[in-house]
């Protein structure tokens, strides 16, 4: 009997150890190794401050004002989808370098990002997104789809995006685009998309 009990205990212990190794130990070791590879690939001088970066697509208004143009930029990598979404949005909200012009008014800050299991992201922006918006249907379409596409194009885990202002759901930003529901990606407003 005791022998049999011992055998059971041994099996349980083995399962726990194997589980830890498979699901925690191995991924941690693997991630550490990849960090090392990335760090090694970076400049030797910056090696000690190396933060993993990914290339993301953000959007600006085309020169002819008739569409959005995708622009590649580096943003810090995060394994968590909301954190990655935050990094991409912060790059998108940052002042555009000339000659780029952003469809998002200057000074807008990201308050928070939530992502549901269904793939709906809720991005909570400061009130400037509405109060500083210059109005006009086309501009408003560009503002909305800059944000919607910046998340849905870069992050497959995000299918739709709803914009909140100061933590609240809104009808529209400036009286045109219906923001009462999450919106799916729309590349109709984008030229020469490389994705």
């Amino acid at each position, binding site marked *: 009997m005791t022998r049999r009990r011992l055998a059971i205990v041994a099996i349980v212990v083995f399962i726990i150890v194997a589980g830890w190794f498979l699901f925690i130990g191995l991924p941690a070791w693997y991630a550490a190794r990849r960090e090392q590879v990335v760090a090694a690939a970076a400049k030797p001088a910056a090696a000690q401050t190396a933060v993993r970066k990914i290339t993301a697509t953000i959007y600006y208004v085309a020169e002819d004002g008739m569409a959005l143009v995708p622009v590649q930029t580096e943003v810090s990598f995060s394994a968590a989808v909301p954190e990655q979404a935050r990094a991409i949005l912060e790059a998108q909200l940052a002042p555009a370098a000339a000659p780029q012009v952003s469809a998002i008014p200057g000074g807008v800050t990201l308050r928070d990002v939530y992502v549901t299991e269904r793939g709906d992201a809720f991005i909570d922006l400061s009130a400037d997104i509405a109060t500083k918006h210059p109005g006009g249907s086309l501009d408003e379409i560009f503002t909305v789809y800059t944000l919607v596409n910046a998340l849905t194009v870069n992050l497959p885990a995000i299918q739709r995006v709803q914009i909140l202002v100061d933590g609240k759901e809104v009808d*529209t930003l400036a009286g045109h685009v219906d923001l009462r529901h999450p919106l799916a990606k729309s590349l109709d407003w984008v030229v020469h998309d490389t994705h």
Partner: protein
Amino acid sequence: MTFYCTTTGKQYNHRTLNVSRLLAPLLAAVCLLSIALPAQQPASALPYTVVTKDARRPLAVRLMSGQEMFALDDLARFFGLTVREDTQAGAITVTSGAQTIVLSPQQPLASIAGRMISLPAAPAREGRTWFVPVDFVSRALAPVATSRIDLRKPSRLVLLGDIRMPRVASRVEPQGSITRVTLDVAPATPHTVAQDGQRLVVRFDADALDADLRGGPATDSFQNIHFGDTPQTVVIDLGPRFASFRASDQPAPAGGGTRIAIDLAAQTETPSTQTATPPGQPTPPPVNPEGPPPLLDLPPAGGLRAIVIDPGHGGDDVGAKGAQGTLEKNVTLAVARRLKAALEARLGVRVLLTRDADQPVPSDQRAAVANNNKADLFVSLHANASVRPHVSGAEVFYLAFDENGSGPRSSQAGRETLPVVGGGSRDIDITPWQTAQVGHLDQSTALARAVEGALRERIAMSPRALQQAPFRVLVGANMPAVLVEMGFLTNAQQEHQLQSDEYQNAVAQALLDAIVRYRAGGGTR
């Protein structure tokens, strides 16, 4: 083993009988009793007449629980139907050609290929015959029948096949020395008016007339109005001092028909036949206190009755702003007023603005103005803005539904049968605010194309002149709807234009042209 009592329509299964054999004689007694004491004898009512090309035959009507009913067997004979009763399924199937109507004995409903149609009463049985409400003919039978079936309740007629039988309603109004006899005819039917001695004979090019002839007080020139000797004629008996008549045709104000105005002039010291109302002048509104004439209340074919113009923004919501300080809210209101004036003057339609002052109006309220006034079209006016100041040109938008989003498409409109005051029930189409525009998308596209084409003839268009977008104000509009961006206020030249009379008139004129073309294209609902 099943014991079926044909008179009571009750079914008893073998288990009931096994429980107590004593019940058997009791059941037999109930059956006998129900034969001996027949249920309340249904009252007969005035029969309908089935009119075909070559015959008029009576169709018996039974009054059952206050409802006029036809026997299904009679309908089967007249309309070539096959009626089958499925006692197991508790249903009656009525087959007409390849189509089947299913009736349930307890329910005031008929089902055609899964579509439910409400009836004012459930089918009722008398002996071996099933009876269905009169409305079964118009609601269930007519839609599936191969030949045309037209139930006319006021005149108790069922027209079968291609019968030309216009409705004719008469009205007589003494107007001084003239007596006006008005005949409203729907649909419009060729006719002649001729004097035959002391009578005027109005002869219609039709198989028969479905006429509601109401006379009036006898005057010097008028005595009576009645049917003529043939089914196609109406006769007006003339008064003793009749002098002359004048007949004119006008489109019926209720739509779809003709109004024949016959002025009967009497002899006076100063003959006044010339003072008769000339053709074309609107006749006075019908004076008919005894009930509405049996005319169809339909909009004129291809016509528009009401248009709602929505001047964008307003109040604190100034919209886009030009460098010179021009505000979108002011431009939209100015053009809306010009367009309203042009539409009213040229098309004679009712035009409503969602705002006629500098005031804020919520999006839903804008659509509500259009929905509550049963507008045929909704046109929202805006002026555009761009972060690129050189961008210019007008754009036309219609609604885009976010196919993958959780937006309007995911909730579906439905139909509900609701009880109405006075008994019976009525099918009510439920249109959620969110899906109101879904059913009009094709027409909205046609309207947007017409607007884009007409604008292009008068003003410069943007490279993306016709587009779809998920615009808030269009979602709730339960009619064809477009949003017009008239130009870019952020463009210095366009800001100047948008303020000018010339440009505003050009936009209003183009929208008028577009609506005329859209109407001509039969794009109305």
